């Protein structure tokens, strides 16, 4: 599967915050039935928070840097995202320098939290080492509608 868990970036403020969304479809290979009906597994909702953060890092560094996960202080999976749901992801930068960033984030469905994560520490690494710049730029334009 394409490992892109953010479908749209609705708003962002460089170095401060981002709001994105992922829509949940039964047609997505990410959606599985773990015993109580089809669901986007909670760790993938956490990944959506992390990916919103990494897009914010790119938008905050003129596309030079991406985030690689170093540690998660805490995460709670408190609800489910199921087919038909729109998951709204909010990420907030707690601190950031040239080498690392610390973010917190919440994913909500219909206003109710489904995943809450704190102290997500990331290493900022050269984006070009991971993906061709033109591909990242095309994806960012698609996500932001720019």
């Amino acid at each position, binding site marked *: 599967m394409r490992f*892109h868990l953010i479908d749209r970036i609705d708003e962002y403020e460089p170095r401060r915050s981002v709001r994105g969304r992922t829509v949940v479809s039964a047609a997505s290979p990410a959606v599985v039935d773990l015993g109580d009906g089809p669901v986007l597994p909670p760790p993938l909702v956490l990944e959506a928070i992390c990916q919103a953060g990494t897009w914010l890092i790119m938008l905050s560094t003129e596309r030079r840097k991406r985030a690689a996960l170093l*540690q998660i202080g805490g995460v709670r999976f408190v609800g489910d995202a199921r087919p038909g749901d729109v998951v709204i992801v909010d990420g907030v930068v707690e601190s950031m320098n040239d080498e690392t960033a610390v973010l917190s984030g919440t994913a909500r469905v219909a206003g109710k939290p489904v995943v809450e994560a704190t102290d997500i520490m990331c290493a900022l690494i050269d984006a070009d*080492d991971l993906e061709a710049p033109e591909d990242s730029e095309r994806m960012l334009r698609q996500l932001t509608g720019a």
Partner: protein
Amino acid sequence: MTSLMSLDRVVDVESGRRAEAIRAVPGTLDLFDSHFPRFPVLPGVLILGTLGTLAELLMRDTTRSSWRLGGASGVRYRHFVRPGDLLRLTVELITHDDGTATCSAVAAVEERRVTTVRRLLLDRVAGGAPCAG
């Protein structure tokens, strides 16, 4: 049900104590096309989720009822996990009561710890039928 967080082989389960399993990381995984084209690595959340799968199995074996991953704290990613790696996963039960359980967890490649989890939290599935075995 196979998912991105499935185990490939359960090596050992000591009911009420610990469990150990293996997950292979083949280069054929589609997700490596996008994560990342120039430097494929297994996403850290999938390592966390797979440790959660093993912890759920341990708790199911221990209590004969269903559990689900409820959260984690103190998750540290020490090294990238690359195609061709074989993850050896270990969870140890720290404490549990009727509704919640806490485990510690480690994922290693050969002798090198790649991910450690100080606390893996599980919640008993409310209303879930006891497992057959």
